[in-house]
């Protein structure tokens, strides 16, 4: 018999098994973030030229572990928690096959430990991408495969939960937009994991001697179907989290269900081989293939993100205007709850993802512009804006939202929590912007020493490059401090936070039952459709419901256009190539 409890603050219903799985996955994710953060500090302090902390072998080992821990383990553990939340909690449904979900969780833990152990043993410093024919220990690949199998099980548990919810009629009408977005993330995840299996299983067999040769170019093509699509899971999931937070904080409703859902579908249909944009300067692949697969002739996945970029803040603006914040174009934004870390994390995530991550990503994914960016430190600059400012900050906002709801604890250090998103956002923006700037001066990524010590030929990057890397180093330290503050608040709240229900202790927050449990066997009432919107006067201007958002969107577009053509200008000045 499935047991449920209702959160007295939010009214959300939690299926006990699903709740425990969410907690387990979220805690595992935050542990991975902690490890990734410590490693990040070591990377930052080595690439900061004036500090240059680690020796070369340790640096490459730490960099490999940092990439895997942050980009794979932290985000995917947390995504599992989001899937169970979107499938079970939001639909008021029991989770399908919780035991399978636990089996998946255990596999993910085993895989993560195995891969990290292989890296820290020192013989698998092959970077996250592990391009063949450079070889890691077999357990490095095997761990990733086991982790992926675990995540795949989680995806199918989620899909099963959708079926259960539908059959048991736990909700009226169509699934909520947030659940729809999570489903899109799940579908992309399945494609991603299948691509990963397709390349990592043969690579594992190669590493133990069963296969003699793996073509290095083919490896890159298929690996990036894993590597890039996995970032698309993040995008789909963190956009869903943006919508969720907009709904929770402002009571915002999507401007148009049709537009938002159609934009999500574009992610599924037009993303997959967009991994092509990692291969723009590769030999053996034709320009036709590169151009088509990076854009599908019209960049519909980019279009989808541009749509969400309008509709998420637009939904907030409409909700705020209904509350009477109608003065000028931006009163709704000025009077937003900037001191609430749930909102500020989400909004910094949105703006940073769009302006820093999104624009730079599309520009460097242009076939010819890639020539002046490929493999420079511009690339880490770009993806720290997408995956850290975008995804990680959205996850942080969600964590602030869920600590009281899920763990029934009051957040500790509320004043520090107010500042945390700004510290982290500022630090990470410095990392992103100054890495990108150093990349335009040619500084290489994944490189231990920009001074090339030990080579008699000698080459000096311009002094500006050293300055830029130094500022990025300072930004990195600020970001790590912000990240540490987040973990201190999140973990501290679980341990020391005031209990919101007297009877629950630390063990209970990890799911150990109490005799006097708040769970009941009663099935939650059916989730109703959202109340119909009252017909009200239009609060917008000139037929535009959210004029302030439209101005912001145009600012984004103008920055995008200018930056795009500046890069063509730079490109036109380099040596002729054909």
């Amino acid at each position, binding site marked *: 018999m499935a047991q449920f409890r209702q959160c007295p603050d939010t009214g959300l219903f939690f299926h006990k098994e699903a709740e425990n799985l969410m907690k387990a996955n979220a805690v595992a994710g935050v542990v991975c973030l902690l490890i990734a953060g410590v490693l990040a500090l070591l990377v930052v302090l080595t690439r900061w030229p004036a500090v240059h902390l680690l020796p070369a*072998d340790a640096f*490459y080992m730490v960099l490999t572990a940092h990439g895997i821990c942050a980009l794979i383990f932290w985000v995917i553990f947390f995504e599992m928690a989001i899937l169970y939340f979107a499938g079970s909690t939001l639909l008021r449904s029991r989770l399908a096959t919780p035991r399978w979900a636990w089996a998946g969780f255990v596999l993910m833990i085993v895989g993560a430990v195995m891969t990290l152990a292989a890296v820290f043993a020192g013989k698998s410093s092959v970077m996250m991408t592990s391009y063949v024919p450079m070889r890691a220990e077999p357990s490095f690949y095997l761990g990733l495969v086991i982790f992926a199998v675990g995540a795949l099980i989680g995806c199918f548990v989620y899909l099963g939960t959708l079926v259960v919810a539908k059959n048991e009629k736990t909700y009226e009408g169509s699934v909520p937009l947030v659940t729809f977005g999570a489903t899109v993330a799940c579908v992309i995840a399945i494609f991603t994991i299948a691509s990963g299996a397709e390349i990592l299983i043969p690579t594992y067999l190669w590493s133990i001697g069963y296969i003699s040769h793996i073509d290095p170019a083919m490896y890159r093509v298929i690996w990036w179907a894993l590597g890039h699509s996995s970032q698309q899971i993040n995008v789909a999931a963190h956009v869903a989290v943006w919508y969720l937070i907009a709904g929770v904080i402002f009571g915002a409703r999507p401007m148009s269900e049709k537009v938002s859902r159609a934009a999500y579908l574009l992610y599924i249909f037009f993303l997959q081989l967009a991994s092509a944009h990692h291969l*723009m300067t590769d030999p053996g692949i034709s320009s036709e293939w590169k151009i088509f697969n990076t854009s599908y002739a019209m960049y519909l996945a980019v279009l989808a993100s541009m749509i969400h970029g309008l509709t998420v803040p637009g939904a907030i603006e409409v909700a705020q205007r209904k509350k009477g914040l109608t003065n000028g174009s931006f009163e709704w934004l000025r009077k937003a709850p900037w001191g609430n870390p749930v909102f500020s994390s989400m909004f910094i995530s949105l703006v940073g993802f769009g302006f820093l991550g999104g624009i730079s990503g599309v520009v460097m994914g242009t076939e010819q512009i890639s020539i002046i960016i490929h493999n420079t430190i511009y690339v880490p600059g770009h993806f720290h804006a997408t995956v850290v400012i975008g995804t990680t900050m959205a996850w942080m906002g969600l964590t602030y939202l869920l600590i009281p709801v899920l763990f029934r604890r009051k957040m500790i250090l509320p004043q520090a929590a107010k500042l945390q998103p700004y510290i982290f956002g500022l630090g990470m923006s410095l990392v992103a912007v100054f890495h990108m700037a150093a990349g335009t001066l040619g500084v290489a990524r994944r490189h231990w020493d920009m001074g090339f010590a030990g080579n008699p030929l000698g080459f000096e990057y311009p002094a500006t490059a050293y300055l830029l890397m130094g500022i990025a180093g300072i930004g990195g330290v600020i970001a790590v401090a912000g990240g540490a503050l987040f973990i201190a608040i999140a973990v501290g709240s679980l341990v020391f936070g005031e209990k919101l229900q007297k009877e629950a202790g630390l063990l209970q927050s990890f799911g150990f039952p109490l005799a006097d449990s708040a769970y009941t066997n009663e099935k939650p009432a059916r989730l109703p459709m959202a109340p119909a919107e009252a017909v009200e006067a239009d609060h917008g201007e000139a037929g535009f419901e959210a004029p302030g958002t439209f101005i912001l969107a145009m600012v984004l577009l103008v920055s995008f256009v200018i930056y795009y053509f500046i890069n063509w200008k730079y490109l036109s000045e380099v040596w002729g190539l054909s």
Partner: protein
Amino acid sequence: MTSFMPPAQKNWWAVPVGRQEIVWIAIALVWCLIMFFMMPFWHMYGDQNISNEGYRVTPIKYQAKVNEMIEKYKVREVGAMKTPVVAPPDGGDIYLMARLWSWYPMLELKKDVTYRLHLTSIDWNHGFSLQPVNINLQVVPGYEFVLNITPNKAGEYTIVCNEYCGIMHHTMLGKIWVKE
């Protein structure tokens, strides 16, 4: 409260879309199309394009070509390792080899002359990163990349390796001199 509740209308797909969204989608789509067309446009009218010429190659065959070129066109040697510097004929083929951890050989080119640059690695992936112009190409073992290059400025250029290739990655440099 509706982003996490079922849509207020059963037939939400039939609800008309607001003007603001339609305008934005139209603008964004036009921009996306412009970005797509820029790529084929630059292939037709731009001077910086990745070639589509590439061949499968084995290290032994490629090394033989490199050595043949060095024998014919070596002009001097540089450094304690006596690395050969090659000045290929105008419009000629250049065979540049990436290996752990050097670019071999070094080159002496002329400004505004077009050469056919052949590029491969005989061991792992490497990254051809020409500084300070900042031209970056992926060098994949087993594949011979052929590009026409036209230096447009005289000076000393350095090839940095920007694809991680092991512990001495940071020492992997090469040189190209471009003369007037």
